[in-house]
């Protein structure tokens, strides 16, 4: 058709650094860059404070030694390595835990309204998987909190400070695809203004994917509707790899039916899970720490209770989270947001009744592989090779600090520590003459193809129904428990869905605030992430962290103490070694993981 968008007809807007995504990691990176004098912009498909970071509740885990003056980042590191079931990179985890306090204190200086202890220091609460003295000193309280609205407080604080520093925001602009030159360097993205429909080439020397997770690949998720893995999908389509994509965290406590998150902080404050007999069943599965075991352990225990007929409710298909014994004062002061959500979405008041909950897809441990500077890489002849111009941070990235299972409160820390590190590195790199070569017209035209195809579609499949099909497929075959033969069925279904996703029909071709166009592209993004997940899950023949195989119930360190590395070009998974070389401490060797 003649109305195709070509490079000649669109504007090129040039920046030094372009950050795709206005959540916690994106705005922490932009804040670093805004102060540097480099021409920086954040392109976000929603106004930044609508990003999913806003939904984080319980807190940001960090050894700031407030609740316990003897707390030590090395203990946090040990917990994180163990929580990750030993496939987190220890150099990155060391960086996360040791740099963490600096990053958290910076947030406080920026104005984040943390809750406080009597002595005026930041309030910290216990979370799952936390210990003192390398697992030998009992439960730690290491999660810094602003009541149960820590993500909201953090995101607004970062936005406020970006306003202060004068960051450029391209709000309600939607990035469609990566532009890369003939040397396979990333030179920016194609994006359009959702408000006007105007398409532009956003050219940059450094492009940071800070686009968050993709929980919407599952039918039941705590994630916002906008969590469609846009950055990761763009990278996959550009032929760049993804790491550990089989590792999806199912949060033990999503509100039954609605999916909204109920923070682990509820159990940190003393709440616990009960089955239909009123039994505190986690005592059987994790005798030492009970309800504060790793999330993967708690989620699996809950599913087993339900499968064995001890679920609650008419259909025996959920579990109760009991909080009423904490009393109205604690609930109102420490967990006010949870009380509000429960009343709205579960029609129960936690002051008097338990909340019906069920394990719900929550977090993508995998993502675009990066080093601690946020630089994305691929593998060439078995070695990591930096992709010039491409960076990733936060949930979109796999640096990898979460390995096979993320600990509660570590995601917010990941955002600020690696958003900051990425910003610092880009500054250094660009100021010392780094950068990328320009893309040709042909390169840019190539990145416009998908948008053109959708805009020119005259028949095909409907976004809403194909999305449902995809989400059901992932939920049924790649959920909390997985099995080879089921996954094979799922992979076959995905092959059929691929055809539909590639042939969507956009009926409404209008320009102004056409959310149907956005949703169609988001579905294509979800599909790329789902496929990477499915292929990787099928390959890993063991159970580790969040990846639980009925047909391979044990951890297999001989064969799988490694990352899975997904190549989107041939859809094959290879293995990549885990880093066991931190610089300030000795590495923590793999041990049997019990709680």
């Amino acid at each position, binding site marked *: 058709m003649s109305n195709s968008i070509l490079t000649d007809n669109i504007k090129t807007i040039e920046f030094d650094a372009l950050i795709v995504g206005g959540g916690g990691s994106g705005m922490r990176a932009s804040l670093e860059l805004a102060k540097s004098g480099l021409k920086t912009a954040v392109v976000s498909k*929603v106004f930044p404070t609508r990003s*999913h970071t806003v939904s984080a509740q319980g807190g940001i885990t960090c050894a700031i030694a407030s609740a316990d003056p003897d707390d030590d980042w090395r203990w946090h590191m040990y917990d994180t390595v163990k929580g990750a079931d030993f496939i987190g990179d220890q150099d990155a985890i060391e960086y996360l835990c040791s740099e963490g306090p600096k990053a958290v*204190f910076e947030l406080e200086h920026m*104005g984040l309204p943390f809750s406080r202890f009597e002595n005026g220091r930041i309030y910290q609460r216990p979370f799952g998987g936390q210990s003192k003295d390398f697992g030998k000193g009992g439960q730690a309280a290491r999660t810094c909190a602003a*009541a149960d609205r820590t993500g909201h407080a953090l995101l607004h604080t970062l936005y406020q400070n970006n306003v202060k520093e004068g960051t450029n925001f391209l709000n309600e602009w939607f990035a469609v695809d990566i532009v890369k030159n003939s040397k396979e360097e990333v030179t920016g993205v194609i994006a359009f203004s959702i408000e006007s429909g105007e398409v532009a080439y956003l050219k940059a020397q450094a492009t940071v994917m800070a686009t968050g997770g993709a929980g919407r690949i599952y039918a039941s998720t705590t994630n916002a*509707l906008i969590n469609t893995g846009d950055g990761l999908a763009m990278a996959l389509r550009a032929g760049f790899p993804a790491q550990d994509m089989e590792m999806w965290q199912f949060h033990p406590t999503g509100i039954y039916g609605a999916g909204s998150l109920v923070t682990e902080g509820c159990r940190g404050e003393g709440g616990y899970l009960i089955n239909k007999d009123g039994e505190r069943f986690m005592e059987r599965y994790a005798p030492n720490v009970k309800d504060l075991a790793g999330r993967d352990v708690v989620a699996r225990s809950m599913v087993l209770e339900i499968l064995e007929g001890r679920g609650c409710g008419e259909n025996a298909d959920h579990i109760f989270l009991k909080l009423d014994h904490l009393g109205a004062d604690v609930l109102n002061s420490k967990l006010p947001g949870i009380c509000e959500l429960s009343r709205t979405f579960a029609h129960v008041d936690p002051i008097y009744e338990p909340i019906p909950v069920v394990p719900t897809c929550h977090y993508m441990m995998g993502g675009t592989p990066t080093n601690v500077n946020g630089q994305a890489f691929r593998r060439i002849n078995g070695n990591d090779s930096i992709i010039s111009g491409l960076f990733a941070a936060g949930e979109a990235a796999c640096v990898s600090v979460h390995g096979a299972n993320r600990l509660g409160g570590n995601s917010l820390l990941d955002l600020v520590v690696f958003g900051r590190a990425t910003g610092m590195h880009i500054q250094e790199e660009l100021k010392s003459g780094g950068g990328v070569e320009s893309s040709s017209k042909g390169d840019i035209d190539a990145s416009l193809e998908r948008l053109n195809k959708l805009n020119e579609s005259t028949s095909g499949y409907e976004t809403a129904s194909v999305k449902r099909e995809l989400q059901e497929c992932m939920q049924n075959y790649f959920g909390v428990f997985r099995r080879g033969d089921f996954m094979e069925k799922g992979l076959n279904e995905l092959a059929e869905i691929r055809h539909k996703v590639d042939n969507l029909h956009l009926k409404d071709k209008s320009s*102004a605030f056409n959310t149907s166009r956005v949703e169609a592209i988001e579905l294509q993004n979800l599909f790329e992430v789902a496929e990477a997940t499915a292929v990787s899950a099928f390959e890993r023949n063991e159970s580790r962290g969040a990846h639980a195989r009925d047909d391979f119930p044990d951890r297999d360190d001989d064969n799988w103490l490694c990352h899975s590395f997904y190549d989107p070009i041939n859809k094959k998974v290879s293995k990549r070694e885990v880093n066991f070389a931190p610089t300030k401490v000795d590495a923590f060797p793999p041990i049997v993981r019990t709680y």
Partner: protein
Amino acid sequence: MLTNQLEVSMYRYNPEQDEFPYMKKYKIEKPARDIMVLDLLHLLKEEDESISYRRSCREGVCGSDGMNINGKNGLACITPISSVMKKNKIELRPLPGLPVIRDLVVDMTEFYAQYEKIKPFLQNNTTAPEQERLQSPEDRDKLDGLYECILCACCSTSCPSFWWNPDKFVGPAALLQAYRFIADSRDLETVERLDALSDPFSVYRCHGIMNCVSVCPKGLNPNKAIGEIKSMLLKSKKNIITSDGTN
């Protein structure tokens, strides 16, 4: 109309096609269970792809889907249809007082400009300690009811004073944030913040109509914060007069 049918009357406007906005009626089967207005919109959008609205978290914390539901501003995602339905009818309009981009999507530029005007960030030029700045729990409690604002604009767009002077009256949402920083023991610019609000429009155009309080989906009270600002302004004025008198 059949009792198992729900009639939704929706404000529609697409600048590329419509000279004027109009109300369009949709009839759908009433869902078996109570759903949120946002779920209702999803159902309608599956039938009519051209409907446009904002949404993100779908749990009342991101502030994307503020709209006017049967005459009252609220968040679609936490408003059950049972709570607003009148004779099986629901009317959906964009937030009032701001320019409409399309359908239920408004242009929030003026709203955000007022927010930026109050310098919505902590100001403290003393050298930061190596650790956190200390704050007593009592001082921190003063921020409760203020920092939780989600910038949904339900309050400011229900305020007749904001409709009248969106460029000069700061509006309830941004004034709530102005007070959030005034009330913060760590912020040292209280005098400047008050000074910036002391003209006849910024805060004094609030006439205590209280629509802001009645619509806030987070149960916050901008009117109270505005009252605090006004009484602080009054006190600071008195002080100036006294010091002038003694000079």
